[in-house]
């Protein structure tokens, strides 16, 4: 039998849910118009007054908000409340230069904890469960987001964070953890290390794993379930919108992630035209936050590619389900949970060489961990007749990328003109991960 964290809202009939959304949307638009110059300017120039939003359909008249808008407003330009009301600040993971910064009011934090607790229950987690939380703690929203949700639920949370894998396995064994929260690739890495250390997951108490922060596949789910002896479920979130717990796959249905529509209005658009696509069709996920106070975002383009269905779910929850993310509509890569744009690597190469080198990024997954190979063409500017000079160059690029982006890579020097040139936009990334 399905249990809920907040039954009334999770099973709200569609008409009531939409009425609630409209009420909250109007209030959100009103607030951003009055408190955030960015929105006021945008709506004024589009000739939109907040009071002309009278139906959910009207949402489509509002302009999109993008990651670039957030960068341009760095750090606090899009905040809708004074700083004394902000109790927590997070930022997007891994990015160099200007990260996207988000601020939470006390109410935002409590809503987030509620939604994360709701997500945990949706994944069949209850009071009495022992949650091994291996998402990173810090500016990244994963660790603290899952942590507060677990406490809100009243489960026992182990704030282990990432890294130190051998110790993680010992703790999972000794503390009788029943729930694992981490990135899907890290779960497989844990499994490999456990096996190498002679630990059999069948002897552990782990029952369910909640995995997110990077793209994964149905075949990876089968592999994780077989190797870790648990039920693997998908969670979705992004710091701009909130953090983990924006959408969660249910234990009963295991087919798409319920997006919590009483707080977020999802739309799926064609990334080229900006027009909405039909239910079930693939497109870019756009989210409007309707309860956030610190940094409400109206029609935020997530760049994540998915589809949506409003079909009833076996679990009884009435909230729409989005499909597992199948890619990005921009060139961002997610490598071991870290967001990486090719332009960031390009700027590192330019700084080292003083020239704009031709390069290619090859992303793969080996032994369950993402790998990044950076191929750099060797031209006369960087060529030397000494091996150690060229190897020093490779090492330096590897170190700079690690320092700036937090991603480990290997640099491969290649002959000029061996990286394919294209007529239009240069192909900078080859993603070989079979997802």
């Amino acid at each position: 039998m399905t249990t809920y964290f907040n039954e009334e809202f999770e099973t709200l009939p569609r008409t009531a849910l939409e009425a609630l959304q409209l009420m909250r949307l109007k209030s959100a638009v009103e607030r951003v118009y009055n408190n955030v110059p960015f929105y006021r300017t945008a709506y004024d120039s589009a000739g939109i007054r907040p009071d002309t939003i009278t139906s959910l359909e009207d949402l489509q008249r509002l302009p999109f908000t993008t990651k670039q808008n957030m960068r341009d407003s760095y750090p606090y330009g899009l905040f809708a409340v004074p700083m004394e009301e902000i109790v927590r600040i997070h930022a997007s993971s891994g990015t160099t230069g200007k990260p996207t910064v988000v601020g939470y009011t006390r109410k935002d934090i409590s809503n987030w904890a509620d939604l994360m607790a709701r997500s945990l229950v949706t994944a069949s987690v209850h009071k009495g469960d022992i949650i091994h939380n291996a998402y990173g703690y810090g500016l990244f929203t994963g660790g603290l987001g899952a942590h507060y949700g677990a406490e809100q639920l009243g489960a026992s949370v182990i704030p282990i964070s990432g890294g130190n894998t051998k110790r993680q396995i010992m703790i999972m064994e000794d503390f009788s953890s029943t729930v694992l929260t981490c990135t899907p690739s890290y779960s497989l890495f844990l499994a490999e290390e456990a096996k190498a250390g002679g630990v059999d997951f069948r002897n552990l108490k782990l029952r369910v794993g909640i995995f997110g922060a990077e793209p994964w596949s149905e075949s990876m789910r089968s592999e994780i379930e077989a190797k870790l002896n648990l039920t693997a479920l998908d969670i979705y979130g992004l710091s701009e919108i909130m953090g983990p717990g924006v959408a969660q796959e249910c234990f009963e249905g295991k087919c798409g992630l319920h997006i919590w529509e009483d707080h977020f209005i999802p739309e799926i658009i064609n990334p080229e035209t900006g027009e909405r696509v039909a239910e079930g069709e693939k497109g870019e996920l756009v989210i409007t936050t309707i309860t956030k106070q610190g940094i409400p975002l109206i029609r935020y383009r997530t760049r994540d590619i998915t589809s949506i269905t409003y079909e009833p779910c076996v679990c009884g929850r009435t909230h729409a389900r989005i499909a597992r993310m199948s890619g990005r509509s921009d060139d961002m890569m997610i490598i071991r949970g870290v967001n990486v744009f090719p332009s960031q690597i390009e700027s590192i190469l330019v700084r080292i060489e003083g020239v704009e080198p031709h390069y290619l990024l090859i992303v793969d997954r080996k032994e369950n961990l993402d790998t990044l190979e950076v191929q750099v063409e060797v031209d006369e500017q960087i060529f030397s007749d000494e091996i150690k000079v060229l190897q020093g160059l490779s090492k330096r690029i590897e170190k700079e990328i690690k320092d700036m982006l937090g991603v480990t890579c290997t640099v491969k020097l290649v002959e000029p003109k061996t990286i394919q040139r294209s007529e239009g936009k240069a192909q900078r990334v080859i993603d070989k991960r079979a997802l």
Partner: protein
Amino acid sequence: MMVEQISIFIENKSGRLAEVSKILGDAGVNIRALSLADTSDFGILRLIVNDRDKAMAALKGKGFTVNKTVVVAVEVPDQPGGLASILQVLDSETINVEYMYAFVERCGSNAVIIFRFDETEKAIAVLAAKGFNMLEGERLYGI
């Protein structure tokens, strides 16, 4: 006292060395000495040729990355301990050998070793003072 060497960047994949030698052959360039230094990903082919300009033009024309470096060609007695004698001198003067390779042909009763030093000028002075004979580029290219 100095010799010009050309170096070519070659990716570690089959056929590349053959490609380079064919380009040089087609251009009528004769290779006098060579060494190949390699890592798992790439190699550096270093050559002494009879016509550097022609060799560089031909290789660049085919998209290879090529550069010119100054090396020193030293005559070493072709007998046991011959190489050791010169290396001892360099060591005692703390001159670092970046790399070295042997010349294809002998010069009279001597072998010829090509050296790349960290301090070329100093190395030449030291070797000359110790009585080692170094070959002029022009002589070498035509051997």
